[in-house]
């Protein structure tokens, strides 16, 4: 897999990285990897034994749900949209699944519920945005309000425990690697493949770059929009399963608004453009690792929750500014 690609035009060209002018114009696409390395080095100075296999696995395990969410967000951002409802949708899915299992339901179906509920909600987002021409920001913000409100009402703010079996099954280690990490990798690789190698992916980037041009060229843009939001919902579902297992419970806390910021920050820091048309699933994963590391460091340094918010907000703005600036230069 070609790690240094985030500009779509490079992904599809043989010349790719060897084409000097693309390299020269697009240095910013290496930024996420540089940041990742810098953060890694910085953290390993601060934290003793950071660069050990168990420790890295634990960081990746922590990253897994955020990464999956960021991949879903990436699809929507590439399309030129935004999904602010991912946390709420995920929490509601988790809660429905957990309630089903609590009432004696089978854990496989419980897991399915956790995926299907968010997928359906994502589908509703998609229909509203594509077929009813509503603004993504407004639709998904409303969806976040609805889902988090519903989740809180249903649970009375009490978390719903899930069975040990369910959690053990999800957290099981395969060749020494916790399953969530493997899920994250599988999801990332499949999404990466669809985005970069299939024509659905190409449609996604085209629609994210120009809806009118895509339409004239015969691309079913409405269906592409619908698919992207539905996929984002589904990723909310996958994340719901991972999160619930790691917390041994489903709770409305999972869906607080600030989670949306972590998701968007991951995508943006990883190199997914918030203006559409640029980025891949792998970018989202890299971004999620960076954000998780930064959160951990701030946690260890006892930085207050509110200062953490300020810092993350600044990070988003910084990266969006770099993105916007590099685009402006490109169009010279």
């Amino acid at each position: 897999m070609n790690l240094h690609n985030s500009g779509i035009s490079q992904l599809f060209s043989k010349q790719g990285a060897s084409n000097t002018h693309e390299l020269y114009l697009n240095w910013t696409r290496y930024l996420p990897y540089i940041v990742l390395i810098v953060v890694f080095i910085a953290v390993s100075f601060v934290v003793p034994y950071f660069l050990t296999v168990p420790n890295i696995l634990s960081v990746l395990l922590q990253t897994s749900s955020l990464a999956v969410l960021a991949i879903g967000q990436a699809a929507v951002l590439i399309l030129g949209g935004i999904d602010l409802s991912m946390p709420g949708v995920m929490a509601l899915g988790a809660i429905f699944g957990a309630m089903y299992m609590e009432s004696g339901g089978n854990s496989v179906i419980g897991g399915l519920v956790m995926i299907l509920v968010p997928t359906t909600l994502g589908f509703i987002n998609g229909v509203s945005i594509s077929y009813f021409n509503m603004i993504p920001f407004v639709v998904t913000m409303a969806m976040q309000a609805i889902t988090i409100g519903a989740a809180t009402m249903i649970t009375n703010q009490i978390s719903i425990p899930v069975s040990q079996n369910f959690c053990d099954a999800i957290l099981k280690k395969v060749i020494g690697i916790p399953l969530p990490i493997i899920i994250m990798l599988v999801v990332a690789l499949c999404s990466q493949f669809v985005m970069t190698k299939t024509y659905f992916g190409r449609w996604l980037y085209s629609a994210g770059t120009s809806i009118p041009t895509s339409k004239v060229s015969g691309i079913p843009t409405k269906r592409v929009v619908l698919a992207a939001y539905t996929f984002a919902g589904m990723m909310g579902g996958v994340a719901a399963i991972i999160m619930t297992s790691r917390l041994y419970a489903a709770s409305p806390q999972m869906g607080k608004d600030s989670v949306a910021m972590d998701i968007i920050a991951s995508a943006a820091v990883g190199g997914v453009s918030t203006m559409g048309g640029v980025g891949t699933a792998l970018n989202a994963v890299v971004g999620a690792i960076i954000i998780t590391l930064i959160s951990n460091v701030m946690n260890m340094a006892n930085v207050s929750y509110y200062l953490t918010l300020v810092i993350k907000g600044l990070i988003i703005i910084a990266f969006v500014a770099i993105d916007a600036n590099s685009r402006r230069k490109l169009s010279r």
Partner: protein
Amino acid sequence: MTVSYLKMEGIAKFFPGVQALKDVTFEAAKGEILGLIGANGAGKSTLMNILGGNLQPNAGRILIDGKEVCIDSPTAAANHGIAFVHQEMAMLPTMSITDTMYISSYPYKRGLIDYKKIHQNCRSVLKRLGCNFDPREKIRNISPGDQQMVEIGRALLHNPQIIIFDEPTSSLTLREKDHLFDVIRSLKNEGAVIIYISHFLDEVFNLCDRVMVLRNGETVGGGQLSDYTYNDIVKMMIGSKEIDTYYSRSEHSTGEEIMRVEGLSRTGIIHDISFSLNKGEVLGIWGQLGSGRTEVARALVGLDPIDSGMIFINIDGSMTPVKQSETKKYIGMITENRRKEGLLLPMSVKNNMSLANLPKLTKKSIPFVIDPKLENSQVEKFVSRMEIKISSPSQRVETLSGGNQQKVIIGRWLQKNPLIYIMDEPTRGLDVGAKADIRRIISELAEQGAGILVISSEIEEIMSISDRYIVMKRGGIVNEFGGKVTREELVAAATGALTEKE
């Protein structure tokens, strides 16, 4: 001998992968119109963008009135009295005319924009251009021709001494064009230096005093226009390659019906449009700008809504009603507005070229997965078929010259090879050689059995390729002609001198 007011000397410009300009030198005097011509990608826009402060040259210097100047931004250019009417208009549809014209130079009065003053200025500048609309009008409410006038008005606001026109006439009606020429001549008489870029050589001959020809980024000739013939100029532009710029299609028969339109209407825009198109036929839609011709094309592919009407397409031998939203499957559409609806500007030439055809570029063994080899070979095939000037297939399409961008769009549809083509101004921005080539391609497509609908503002063009014509006026079809129609009949029908068809 006049003294030159403007001199550009030894200008060179490299872009990654291409040298757009090599050592270009020219002079222009006050009170003269210099025609700047050359094939697509020759470097005309690049040269003028350097003069306009949008690009920095890698070598060379610019002298104005004998003094070397540094033009490092459009603002600096404006301060040196240089104004630029761009090839591709960048209009903000929801802004007012005034705002569009003053966007980069609002005058303030006590911290507030002095709208009273600028409305007045706009009105007087527009009046000079012969436009009487209210400067408070929103851009989206005026025609493309009027938008072009606003763009020109913007350039004239600050009494420029050097005015660059980069293909200004492509969206103007005949009347507006004549009027623009009058304006340009009067600017010339007021002592401005005018640089005029156009692919319409008759315009150049009509308007310009001197000419400079660029080829592949080099000056290949120039001088008083009166010393040259049309053919001399074409030869200089294209080089040794022999081309026939007067392509005209031979008579031939057409096949069975391929598309039929019945009663297409949209209140206030088009009404009761009915016609049919046959296999192997080129049907020209003729009419003035604003006659509804573009709107019909857009309605046919579902870009604009319709209130009533049916579209039938011959699918596997039978005429089948097709929903407006589904017609795109069978129709290749080249829209008038290439930047907005034709191109994915920040993406590669390759992505743009295969855009319409992706499902057919998949691997045989794995569904949905694009076969890079197949895609590359298809792209290469149509890049060379259309003679598109690119440095590599991964070049971003926004860095291509205007004419080459248009070729990318045409190449995209040739690759897809649909049943029916709708071409709205297919040769806009193309050089004389490429124009002739497009006519040849259209003719070939028809011979292979496609049905083709062509809209063009150039009567010679539409007459050289069409088998049949429908003439539109005020949103309706007013007449139909066979291949034997004369130019005068067409013009008369579109302007209303002939009696209207019942």
